[in-house]
């Protein structure tokens, strides 16, 4: 009965409190509207990161700051709270939170929305917002008063909602229900399979923005609330969940294309490309999420971690400091932390690693407020602002820092009572005939409590509960004494009670306790954290170049490698040159590289001043090897593959410059590759053509002005023959269907081009704004029809090869290259007539049914019929010894050595339409050059030096040194890990793996399950 009454009482009480301050809500009984004026005095107030007021007062009323200053008259009706010595900060703002969004398992699909459920810019996070007191309290304890919550899934995630973390006023804590749009590359659990890859996600975002442009015209062709939402929110800030340094650049490319500005949520590894990000002038939301400490327990454990992994562990806490030093605009988020307690720990670690107090405050208060255009209400302690204030015992970064009060919309949350300095008390007592003393004192809002037996310190557990300090101690570790000390209003001791092991309790009144020299001992100063060296790896890989994070002398790595690190003039003397220009091999010739190009070839060339001279005696020089078919250096999937045509996706968008296979390629003399989409669908994606400029960023790796290429595929992969018995629904399932996919798409592309031409040629009607709908898939196919984009088609069996050529002839386009093309030898005459190139494996076969008639003589036969033929890899391992794969065509079919070398140099350059600059040693050609220890086709020859654009990227003579350096750096970091003790060490080993892609790799299936497909 009593319980029930209490419950009912509580209910009314809470109800009243909750609804009392809202005007429109009904009242049960007399309204309890309070308009109390609070005066917080004696504070050191950080109005923002720069302006500090000493001994200042803040007045709070009705949820707002009504005044703040040092000369404020406190009205008599104010409740004055004395906070002498305390520090006030604007409370923090987190722009990236999923914590209070309950997004349903069953994906919501709104009527009138667009085709792809992952595109939901029309959704309101508000609809799924559920205030969670437990989560809110974690934020409040960590200093956050306002969070921006978004839907955690989807590509376009819709409107995020800005709320305070005030739990008193259920409707007032929503500040803005349409605060910012959110976009991500990760579709989450969207029920639609497209996009399955990063490249697909990029294409979908671009297409959606194009669709929105089209939709903004006045001639509506359909109702689409998704596109409407994008257009309606065009002035709102957009948060882009990039979540990786390279994804920042990728998202930035989208922003440039559509003249948009994003706020980039990062993953904490952006320092790794700081020199280039500093050029872009972007805004960031940065997590304080650091990698788990590596588990090092014995001499072999170091094998489990690569240098870049260890280095990231070491450098991650310096990320905010590096961003600050380069003047990047960023705010900080709690997102990604395992537990909320890590927030201050990690923030202070970042401050130990160089993040300034000023920058930390800015990143948590004024900067996030400005990012979302709320700087007139949030982020500052100024008159008229929302009363969101943190009161702390000391300044941020101090290890003793703790939040005492957190005011949110004028509601105080008390985490620790404010107790600045008190007197020091010394309480002598005798117990069991021994003389003890208690020393107690509040210092900086923290209780210091000590017991001494005579002059010996006794180990004691204590806890403050309300006005009572409870404690336990023992002098013999056997018999324990419990005690309590009751405190008065000034924290002065009133009573002491002790209970011995027999249960006998003794009460002592405390009469005289003050003492001038009774200060408990000071705890030792924090030791200074040793900071790691500040070099960065360009790229972030074991074999990357080291560049100082604070070296401001250059803008991007390309400039660095071109200017600072290299001699630009190189003379190779007296070497054997395989020029590919003539069929003969030139012996005893010199080759001069100047200004990234081959400038001279001849005998006894003059040595220019400042040239790097290489004695070429016994060495062979060839043009750089070009791999026509590669899937290295890609991120987030090689196949979109979820639709029969994904012509809109671009592999150039997802180049991963950090992949060590680039360097391994260089070590095999490979200087350029075509990064192809996979072969999961008849019309795949657009190729990325890159040079192996190791260390350069995505854009700088791409070959300038390279013509467009696109992957097509035929046969078992596109029919899904080897995907298991469930994969029987996607069209096409037979070679018959494959033909129709091409016919259908190219007819549609023709119609599209006609529509486009018609649109731009017909006169515009006044008053009607009409936009042409750019269809990225049709654009790519249209480029093929216009001869601006070239096909590389995965193919095996003669029938389908012939089919595609016939389709192409009938629709007026060309098949540039058949890749793999293992039965090309059967239709070589037809291919020659069509003008197709062939890019074959040297000797692969028998891995599936359609390659049972593959022969290693393929390249030789094709070559002799007159088809321009290359040997490719489709494999990170084979790629680095393509010269030896080419040599197999001497063994099988008797090509000459020069013909064989051309299979991996000049011929792929021709089919990639780059032979005006690559593939030959000839003045004017790009200085992409390999120096071999012997004849390039011999198994015993090694690439000694590999140049790309005249830059020496690989030098075999340096590799042992580099390896030693890698080992010594690893050992240094391992020592650092060991010095830090077992603190934070994980219980077991766990880390993310890396994947080698092949043609058939699907992002949504494990390679193991597909090991029989190629």
């Amino acid at each position, binding site marked *: 009965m009593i319980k029930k009454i209490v419950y009912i009482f509580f209910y009314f009480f809470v109800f009243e409190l909750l609804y009392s301050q809202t005007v429109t809500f009904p009242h049960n009984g007399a309204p309890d509207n309070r308009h109390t004026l609070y005066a917080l005095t004696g504070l050191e107030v950080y109005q923002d990161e720069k302006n500090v007021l000493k001994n200042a007062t803040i007045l709070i009323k009705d949820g707002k700051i009504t005044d703040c200053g040092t000369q404020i008259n406190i009205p008599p009706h104010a409740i004055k709270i004395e906070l002498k010595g305390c520090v006030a900060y604007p409370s923090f703002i987190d722009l990236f939170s999923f914590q209070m969004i309950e997004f349903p398992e069953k994906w919501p699909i709104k009527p009138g929305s667009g085709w792809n459920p992952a595109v939901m810019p029309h959704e309101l996070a508000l609809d799924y917002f559920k205030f969670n007191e437990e989560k809110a309290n974690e934020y409040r304890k960590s200093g956050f008063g306002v969070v921006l919550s978004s839907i955690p899934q989807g590509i376009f995630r819709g409107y995020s909602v800005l709320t305070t973390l005030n739990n008193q006023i259920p409707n007032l804590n929503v500040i803005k229900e349409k605060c910012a749009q959110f976009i991500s590359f990760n579709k989450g659990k969207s029920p639609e399979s497209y996009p399955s890859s990063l490249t697909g996600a990029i294409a979908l975002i671009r297409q959606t923005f194009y669709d929105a442009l089209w939709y903004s015209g006045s001639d509506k062709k359909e109702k689409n609330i998704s596109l409407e939402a994008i257009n309606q929110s065009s002035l709102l800030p957009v948060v882009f969940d990039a979540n990786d340094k390279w994804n920042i650049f990728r998202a930035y490319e989208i922003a440039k294309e559509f003249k948009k500005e994003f706020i980039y949520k990062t993953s904490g590894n952006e320092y790794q490309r700081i020199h280039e990000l500093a050029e872009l002038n972007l805004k960031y939301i940065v997590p304080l999420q650091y990698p788990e400490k590596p588990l090092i327990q014995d001499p072999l454990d170091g094998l489990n971690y*690569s240098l870049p992994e260890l280095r990231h562990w070491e450098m991650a806490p310096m990320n905010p400091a590096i961003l600050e030093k380069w003047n990047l605009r960023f705010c900080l988020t709690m997102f990604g932390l395992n537990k909320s307690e890590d927030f201050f720990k990690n923030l202070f670690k970042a401050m130990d690693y160089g993040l300034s107090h000023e920058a930390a405050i800015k990143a948590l208060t004024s900067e996030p407020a400005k990012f979302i255009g709320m700087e007139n209400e949030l982020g500052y302690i100024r008159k008229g602002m929302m009363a969101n204030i943190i009161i702390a015992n000391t300044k941020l970064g101090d290890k003793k820092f703790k939040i005492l009060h957190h005011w949110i919309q004028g509601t105080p949350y008390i985490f620790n009572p404010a107790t600045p300095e008190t007197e020091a008390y010394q309480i002598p007592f005798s117990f069991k005939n021994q003389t003890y003393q208690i020393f107690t004192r509040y210092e900086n809002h923290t209780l210091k409590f000590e017991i001494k037996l005579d002059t010996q310190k006794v180990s004691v557990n204590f806890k403050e509960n309300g006005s009572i300090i409870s404690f336990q101690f023992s002098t013999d570790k056997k018999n324990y004494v419990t005690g309590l000390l009751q405190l008065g209003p000034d924290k002065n001791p009133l009573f002491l009670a002790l209970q011995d092991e027999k249960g006998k309790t003794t009460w002592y009144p405390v009469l005289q306790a003050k003492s001038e020299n009774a200060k408990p001992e000071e705890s030792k100063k924090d030791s200074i954290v040793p900071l790691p060296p500040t070099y960065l790896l360009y790229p972030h890989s074991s074999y990357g170049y080291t560049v100082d994070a604070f070296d401001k002398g250059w803008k991007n790595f390309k400039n660095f490698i071109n200017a600072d690190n290299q001699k630009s003039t190189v003379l190779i003397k007296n070497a054997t040159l395989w020029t590919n220009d003539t069929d003969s091999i030139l012996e005893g010739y010199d080759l001069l590289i100047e200004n990234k190009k081959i400038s001279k070839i001849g005998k006894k060339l003059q040595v220019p001043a400042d040239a790097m001279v290489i004695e070429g005696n016994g060495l062979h020089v060839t043009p750089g090897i070009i791999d026509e078919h590669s899937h290295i250096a890609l991120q987030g999937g090689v196949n979109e593959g979820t639709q029969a045509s994904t012509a809109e996706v671009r592999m150039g968008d997802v180049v991963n410059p950090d992949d060590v296979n680039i360097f391994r390629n260089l070590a095999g003399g490979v200087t350029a590759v075509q990064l192809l989409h996979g072969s999961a669908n008849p019309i795949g994606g657009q190729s990325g053509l890159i040079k192996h400029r190791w260390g350069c960023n995505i854009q700088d790796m791409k070959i300038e002005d390279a013509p467009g290429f696109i992957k097509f595929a035929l046969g078992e992969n596109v029919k899904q023959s080897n995907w298991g018995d469930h994969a029987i629904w996607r069209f096409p399932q037979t070679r018959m269907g494959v033909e129709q996919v091409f016919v259908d798409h190219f007819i549609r592309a023709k119609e599209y081009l006609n529509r486009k031409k018609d649109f731009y040629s017909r006169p515009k009607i006044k008053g009607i704004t009409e936009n042409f709908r750019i269809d990225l898939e049709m654009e790519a196919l249209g480029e093929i029809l216009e001869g601006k984009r070239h096909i590389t088609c995965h193919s095996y069996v003669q029938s389908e090869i012939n089919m595609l050529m016939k389709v192409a002839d009938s629709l007026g386009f060309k098949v540039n290259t058949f890749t793999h093309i293992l039965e090309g030898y059967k239709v070589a005459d037809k291919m020659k007539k069509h003008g197709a190139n062939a890019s074959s494996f040297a000797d692969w*076969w028998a891995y599936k049914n359609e390659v049972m008639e593959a022969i290693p003589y393929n390249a030789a036969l094709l070559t002799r*019929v007159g088809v321009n033929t290359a040997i490719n890899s489709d494999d*990170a391992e084979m790629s680095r*010894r393509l010269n030896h794969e080419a040599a197999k065509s001497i063994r099988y079919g008797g090509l000459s050595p020069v013909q064989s070398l051309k299979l991996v140099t000049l011929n792929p350059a021709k089919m990639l339409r780059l032979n005006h600059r690559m593939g030959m040693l000839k003045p004017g050609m790009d200085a992409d050059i390999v120096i071999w220890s012997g004849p390039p086709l011999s*198994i015993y020859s090694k690439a000694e030096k590999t140049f790309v654009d005249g830059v020496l990227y690989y030098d075999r003579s340096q*590799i042992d040194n580099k390896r030693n350096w890698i080992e010594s750096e690893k050992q240094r970091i391992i020592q650092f890990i060991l010095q830090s003790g077992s603190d934070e060490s994980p219980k*077991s080993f766990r*880390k*993310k793996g890396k994947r080698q892609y092949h043609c058939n790799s699907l992002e949504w299936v494990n390679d193991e399950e597909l090991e029989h497909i190629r």
Partner: protein
Amino acid sequence: MKRFFILVFLALNALTYAQRQKFALLNATAHIGNGKVIENSIIVVEKGIIKLVADATTVRIKKDEYDTLYSLPGMHVYPALINLNNVLGLHDAEAVRATRDYQETGNYNPHVRALIAYNTDNLIVPTIRCNGVLYTQVTPRGGIISGQSSIMALDGWNWEDAVVKPDDGIHLNFPKLISVNWSFDEGLISETNKNYSKEMEELKQFMAESKAYAQEKNPVEKNLRFEAMKGVWSGSKNLYIHVEYAKDILEAIHFIQTFNIPKPVLVGATEIGHVLPAYKKFRYPVILNRTHQLPYREDDHLHYVYQLPKMLDSDSILFAISMHGDMEAMNSRNLSYNAGTAAAFGLDKEKALQSISFNAAKIIGMEKHLGTLEENKWASFFVTKGDILDMATSEVVLAFIQGKRIQIRNKQLELYEKYERKYKEGK
């Protein structure tokens, strides 16, 4: 002399070649397989056995005693290459489930025998022997104990007459301390194998029980799996322990010691380079994976795998190079080039050859018959135009298996000739 050779070739251009009673190879450079090279050699074969290997300038022969004399100046003779640890013969088109016969279901299958699934009419085999690989160890895959391998000659009417050493060993896939798992949310994750101790306990239990069973004279009930293990305990069968990573190799050493395995062989062992100081105390034989493989770790020396054979050789560890890995059956024809890469990275060329001939023969206990061009061994060898380790010069012109000359032809060559004709006639 060249004309003579061609004449012989044409005369013998029949589908199968009868076994010559007595023949000799003259004037070729003989790579003996034990490090020795005879520049101008004579090799005499009688009834399938090598009777003489010598410097041709020191021996006089009577022509009429021989059925055939092969004059091979400028050419090279090598002992048969042996392709260890391979599924060759157990599948045709690998993606087609119906043609795959190398992986049984279940974890402990020592009784499963690969040889009976070895198809002498397999489509891949003829392409392999054209590159000097004349023997293969047909090896089952999967589970913890996959089953038993056998040594097959790449010639025969069926498995029964192709086999030269049936059931030579049992293949154990040693549990891994770190497992690589894949999930939709996170992708590839490598992490401490949570089932490791369970897997090890199961394995130890199996070993202990099979060892006990081997001691029992009249078992109450025949256990096929334990029966199959008897050879491991008696030392008549190798125990092939497939293990790749550094710590796992140490665990494998412990395992071998614990059970006192009479004939252990480590297979794979890619990270053995990181634990060599420990390993060289024991020097169990090793069958390495192909050298044409990427290093496991990003930090590894770019050429770590290439250098590995030289490292083992320097520590006097008996090793062979195998083609185990992706598409290993069809890739078996590249075995010699993988040895070539080892030679490019420090291993003596003749030792590189040895790693795919004599060493392999020693590991499988066939060194009395195979592995070198030495008297009283089987006449299993082949002749090339040049260096077998180097692609460009490795064309094989003659090959013999136990004295029987085999065709250097296959369907691929026929297709080549067919289409070459097509295009020539087209002109």
